[in-house]
C-alpha cells in the first residue's frame, strides 16, 4: 500500500497567514467557552493584536529574508514580493476596518430575531451582541491573504470560499434597515455561489487541458505551443467569470451596489478595500503567472471588460441618490482602472515590474481612501441609522465643515485630482498602460492608448458625480431636520485620520510608497 507522503510546510514563510487563521480559531473557542459578558473584551484585543502581529511578521519577513524565490507548501502558496505587499496592505486595511467594526451601534443585537418583532426589541433591550463578528472577520481576512497568494487553482478556490463565506454572513448583520441588509446577504450569497461554480468549472476545464491545477504547470503546458483547445479557452473564460465577479467588473458588477448598500458600513469598508485588493491580486496571479503565455488571447477580451467596467461604473454612478451605492459604483469604476494595469504587460520582465508596482500602489492608496470615506459615512446619522440618501447631505459643509471637508478631500482623491494620492495612483497605472502601448510594438499598442483615452473620459464623468456631492455639501442650504454628525469614537477618528494622512501625504510625496511598491514588484511573481 502506498503511503501518502507528508507535505513539507514552510511555517516561517506562512506565519502571518497562520497567525490570522489561528487567532480566528481561538476566537471560535472564545465564543464557545468564554462567558458572554467577557467575550467582547477578549475578542477585540485578540483580533487587533493578531492583525498587528501578522503585519509585523510581514514586515520582518520582507526586511530580513526578502521575498522567497520559490512557492511554499509544496507549490501551493506563493509568498512572493507582490503577495507580501498585498498582505501588508490587507492587514492594515483589515486592522482599521476592525476599528470601525468595533464601534457601537453598527451590528444587530440578534440576527435570528425577525425584524420588527418583539423578539428583536427584547434582544435590543438586553443589549445582546454578536461577538462572532470578530472571528468571522479574521477568517475572511485569512481568506483574503490566501487568495492572491495561491499558486494553485484549487487552493485559490478554497481561499475564495474562506474569504467569501464569512462576508455573506457579516453582510446580513446590520442593525438598521435590517431587511435591506438580509436581502443583501442573501443576494451576495446566491450570486457568490453562482460565480464560484463558474470558477470551479473553469478550473476543471483548465485541468483537462494542462493536467494540473498548479499555475506554473499550466503555464508550462501553454508554453509548449500547439493548437489552442477550445476547452482551454472556455476554461479560461469561466475562471475569468469567477474572478471578475469578485473584482466587480462589468458585466458581473450587479451585486456590488446592492450588497454595499445593505451591508453594515464597516463591513462595506472591509469589502471595498480588502476584498478588492485580494481579488485584483488573484486576477494578476492567474493571468500573469498561469496564463501569461496566453496573453494574446485574453488581452482583447480583458480590454473589453476593463472599458465596459469603467464606463458602467462611472455612468451609472451619476444617477445614484444613495451615498453607499454611489461609492459602490465608484468602486466598480476603480476596478476598471485597475484592470488597465493588469493589461499593461510587456515582453521584458523589468517593465512588467513597473506595471505591477503601479497596480500595487493604486491598490494601497485606493484602499485607504475607501476605508476613510466609508468611515465618514458611518458618522452622518439620523433617526433611522445612517443618513444614506444624498439629499440628506445637503449643506453638511455648513454644519460640520471639518467632516465635510475631509469627505470632500476623499472624493477628490477618488476623482484623481492632483495633490491627492488618487492622482498618483491613476497616473502610475495610465503611464504603465501607455508605455505598454508604445513600447511593446505589437498591434495592442493603439488599443492600449485607446483604453487610456476611455479611462480618462470615464474619469471625467466620474469627477462629475464626486464634485456634485461636494457642491451639495458646501453650496446648498442645510436641511432644517438634517442628519446629525455623531462625534467619532477614538477608533473611527483614528481611521479617518490615518486615511486622511495617507491620502494627503502620498498625494504630495508619493516616493516612499512608490519605492516600496517597486521593490515588492521587482521580483515579479514566483512560479
Amino acid at each position, binding site marked *: 500500500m502506498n503511503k501518502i507522503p507528508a507535505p513539507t510546510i514552510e511555517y516561517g514563510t506562512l506565519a502571518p497567514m497562520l497567525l490570522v487563521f489561528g487567532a480566528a480559531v481561538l476566537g471560535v473557542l472564545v465564543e464557545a467557552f468564554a462567558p458572554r459578558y467577557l467575550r467582547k473584551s477578549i475578542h477585540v484585543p485578540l483580533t487587533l493584536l493578531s492583525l498587528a502581529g501578522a503585519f509585523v511578521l510581514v514586515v520582518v519577513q520582507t526586511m530580513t529574508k526578502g521575498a522567497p524565490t520559490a512557492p511554499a507548501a509544496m507549490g501551493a502558496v506563493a509568498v512572493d514580493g507582490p503577495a507580501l505587499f498585498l498582505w501588508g496592505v490587507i492587514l492594515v486595511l483589515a486592522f482599521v476596518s476592525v476599528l470601525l467594526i468595533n464601534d457601537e451601534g453598527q451590528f444587530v443585537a440578534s440576527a435570528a430575531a425577525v425584524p420588527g418583532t418583539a423578539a428583536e426589541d427584547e434582544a435590543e433591550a438586553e443589549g445582546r451582541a454578536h461577538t462572532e463578528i470578530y472571528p468571522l472577520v479574521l477568517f475572511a481576512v485569512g481568506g483574503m491573504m490566501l487568495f492572491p497568494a495561491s499558486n494553485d487553482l484549487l487552493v485559490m478556490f478554497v481561499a475564495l470560499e474562506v474569504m467569501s463565506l464569512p462576508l455573506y454572513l457579516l453582510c446580513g448583520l446590520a442593525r438598521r434597515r435590517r431587511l435591506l441588509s438580509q436581502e443583501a446577504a*442573501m*443576494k451576495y450569497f*446566491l*450570486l457568490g455561489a*453562482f*460565480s464560484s461554480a*463558474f470558477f470551479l468549472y473553469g478550473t476543471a476545464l483548465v485541468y483537462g487541458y494542462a493536467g494540473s491545477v498548479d499555475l506554473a504547470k499550466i503555464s508550462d503546458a501553454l508554453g509548449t505551443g500547439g493548437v*489552442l483547445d*477550445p476547452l482551454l*479557452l*472556455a476554461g*479560461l*473564460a*469561466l475562471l*475569468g*467569470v469567477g474572478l*471578475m*465577479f469578485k473584482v466587480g467588473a*462589468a*458585466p*458581473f458588477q*450587479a*451585486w456590488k*451596489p*446592492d450588497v454595499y448598500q445593505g451591508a453594515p458600513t464597516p463591513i462595506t469598508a472591509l469589502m471595498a478595500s480588502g476584498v478588492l485588493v485580494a481579488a485584483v491580486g488573484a486576477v494578476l496571479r492567474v493571468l500573469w503567472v498561469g496564463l501569461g503565455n496566453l496573453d*494574446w*488571447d*485574453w488581452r*482583447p*477580451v480583458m480590454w*473589453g*471588460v476593463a472599458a465596459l467596467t469603467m464606463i*458602467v461604473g462611472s*455612468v*451609472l*454612478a*451619476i*444617477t445614484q441618490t444613495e451615498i453607499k451605492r454611489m461609492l459602490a459604483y465608484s468602486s466598480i469604476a476603480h476596478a476598471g482602472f485597475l484592470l488597465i494595469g493588469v493589461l499593461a504587460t510587456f515582453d521584458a520582465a523589468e517593465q512588467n515590474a513597473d506595471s505591477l508596482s503601479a497596480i500595487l500602489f493604486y491598490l494601497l492608496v485606493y484602499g485607504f481612501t475607501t476605508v476613510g470615506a466609508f468611515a465618514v459615512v458611518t458618522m452622518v446619522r439620523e433617526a433611522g441609522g445612517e443618513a444614506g440618501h444624498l439629499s440628506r447631505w445637503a449643506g453638511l459643509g455648513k454644519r460640520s465643515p471639518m467632516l465635510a471637508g475631509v469627505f470632500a478631500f476623499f472624493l477628490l482623491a477618488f476623482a484623481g485630482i492632483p495633490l491627492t494620492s488618487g492622482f498618483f495612483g491613476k497616473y502610475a497605472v495610465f503611464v504603465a498602460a501607455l508605455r505598454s502601448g508604445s513600447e511593446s510594438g505589437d498591434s495592442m499598442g493603439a488599443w492600449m492608448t485607446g483604453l487610456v483615452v476611455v479611462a480618462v473620459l470615464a474619469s471625467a*464623468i466620474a469627477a*462629475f458625480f464626486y464634485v456634485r456631492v461636494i457642491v451639495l455639501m458646501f453650496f446648498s442650504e442645510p436641511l432644517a431636520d438634517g442628519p446629525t454628525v455623531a462625534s467619532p469614537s477614538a477608533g473611527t477618528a483614528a481611521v479617518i485620520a490615518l486615511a486622511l494622512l495617507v491620502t494627503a501625504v502620498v498625494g504630495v*510625496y508619493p*516616493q516612499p510608497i512608490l519605492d516600496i511598491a517597486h521593490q515588492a514588484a521587482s521580483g515579479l511573481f514566483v512560479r
Partner: protein
Amino acid sequence: MQTPTDIIPHTGGVIGVAWLMIALPLLGAAVLLIGGRRTDRWGHLLGVAMSLGSFVVAVLALVELLGLGEEQRRRAIELYDFIPGMVKMGLLVDPLSVSFALLITGVGSLIHIYSIGYMAHDPARRRFFAYLNLFVAAMLLLVLADNYVGLFIGWEGVGLASYLLIGFWYFKPSAAVAAKKAFVVNRVGDFGLLVGMFVIWTTFGTLTFKDLDVTGASNGTLTAIGLLLLLGACGKSAQIPLQSWLLDAMEGPTPVSALIHAATMVTAGVYLVVRSGAFFFPVGSGASLAVAIVGAATLLAGAIIGCAKDDIKKGLAGSTMSQIGYMMLGAAFGPVGYAFAIGHLFTHGFFKADLFLGAGSVMHGMNDEVDMRKYGGLFPKMRITAITFIIGYLAIIGFPLLSGYFTKDGIIETAVHSDYPILGWLAVLGAGITGFYMSRMVFMTFFGKPRWAEGAHPHESPKVMTIPLIILSIGSIFLGGYLVVNQTLYHWLSPAVGAAAEAPHFDPFTTPGLVTLAVVAAGVLLAWFMYGRAEVPQTAPAGNALVTFARRDLYGDALNESLFMRPGQWLTRLAVFFDNRGVDGLVNGLAATIGGSSGRLRRLQTGFARTYALSILFGAALLTGALLLVGNL
C-alpha cells in the same frame, strides 16, 4: 568679469538642516490653522517663537558659511526626489540666500513681535499669526530653493499668504476687492514666470541652478526667458506695468504692509533677477536693458504717486514701488549693481519697515485714521514713534551717512556710469521727488497745527510696538554704511552672483553724488514751503492736471480698465454668447446623453437576484464567446 563660484554638495552641520528654517514656521502655521480656537490663547507666542527659531537657524547657517573659504560658500543640500526624473528638491545655501533668509526672519520676527501689540484687540489674531508664519515659510522656500520649481512654489505660497493677509479683514468690501486685485494681477506675472520655466526646461533640460548652463543657447532664447522672468518679477514686485495692486494692498493690517508689501515679498522680483542674473540677464543684454527701463520708469512713477497721496500708507506704498524701482535699476548692471541692489533691498527692508510700523503706530494712536490731513502736530504726543519715523525718513531720502544714502547713491553711480547714463539721471530726479514727498509726509504728520478729528486722543504705543521700531531705526542708521563703505556686501555676495573686473570703491564726492544731494535738498525745501510753513487744509484742494494724474495712480487702473478689462469683458460676453449657442448645445447634449443612458442603464439594476444571475450568465457566455473568437482568429 567673474562668474559665480561652483555649487558644492553639502551634508551635516547647521546648513545640513537648513530646511528647519522653512519647516518651523510651516509647522507653526499648521498648528495654528488646524488647532483652531484652542490655540487662541498662546497662538501668537507660538508664531513669534517659530519665526525666531528660523532666525536662529539662519544666523547659525551664516556663521557656518563664514567659517568656509570664499570659494566654498555655495552649499547645496539635497532633500528628496520631488518630480522623479525632473526635479530633485534641494536647498541652496549661499551668501545671497542666507542674506535673504536673515532679512526675512530678522525683520519678520520683529514684525511678529510688533503685531502682538498691534493686533491685540483683534478677535482673529491667531489666524493672523498663522498667515504670517505661512508667509515666512513660503518666502524662505522661495529664496532657499536650489531650483526654479521650488522657487515657484514659494513664489505662489507668498502670493497666497499675501492674498490672505490683504483680505484679512475680509468683511470690509474694499479689503476683499484689494485682495482679489492683488491675486489677479499677480497671476499675470506668475504666468510669465511659469512660461519662462517651461522654456528653460525645454531648452536646457534642467531647472536646477547648479546644472543650468546657458552657454551655447541662442541670444533670442535667452532674451525671451529673461523677459518672461522679468514679467514675473514685475508682478511680484509691483513694477510697471503690473504695479496697480500694491497701493490697494494697503487695505491689509499695517504689519502686513510692512513685512510683505515693503520689506520682503515685493523684493522677490529683485531676488529672481539677481539669482538668474548670471544666466539670463548678463550686462548689456536686451533683457537687462528691459530690467533697467522698467526700474527707472517705476521709480519715477512710484515717487510721483507718493507725492499726491493723503493716505499715509498709500504714500508709503508709492514710495515702496519707487524704491524697488531703484533696486531693479541696480539689478540690471551686473555684479556691482547686484551688490548695490541687494544692499538697497536690505536698507530699504529696515527703513521701510520702520516707516510702515511707525505709520501703524500713529494710526494705532489715532483711531486708525490714515488721512494725513487729519494729523499734524503729533510729535510731542508720540515721541518715540516720531523720532524713529524721522530716522527712517532721513534714511530713505538719502541723508548723508544714513543707510539709504549709501545704497541709493551706489545704484545712481552705477547707472550713471553704465551705457545708459540717462537712466541714472532719471534716478537722480527720482531722489529729488523722494525728498519732496517724504518730507511732505513728515511735515503733515508730526509738525504744524493739529488737525485731528473730534474724539482723537493721540498717545504713544505700547513697548511691544515701540521696541521693534527702535531696533529697525538703528538698522536704518548704520546698516548702509556697514554694507557699503568697505564694500563688505559686494565681497560677501560675489561668490553667489559673480564679481566685476574691478571692485567698486566708495567715494562720496562725485558729480552724481553731489547733484543728488542738491536735488534732494531742493525737494525737502519745496516741501517745507508747501506743507511745513503753510497751513495744510483738512480737505484736499482740487489740483491741476498733474496732481490729478498722480492722485489717480497715473491712470494705471484706468489704463488697465480700458486696455484689458473692457475688451476682456467684451471678449467674455462674446465667448458666453458662443458658449450658450454652440458649445453648450454640444456639452449639454453630451451630458444629457450620459445622464440619460445612466438613467436607462440603471433600470437593469432591478434588485432581483435572478436578473443579476442572468446578467452573470450572459456575461459568461459573452466572455467565452469572445475568447473562442479571438483564439481562433
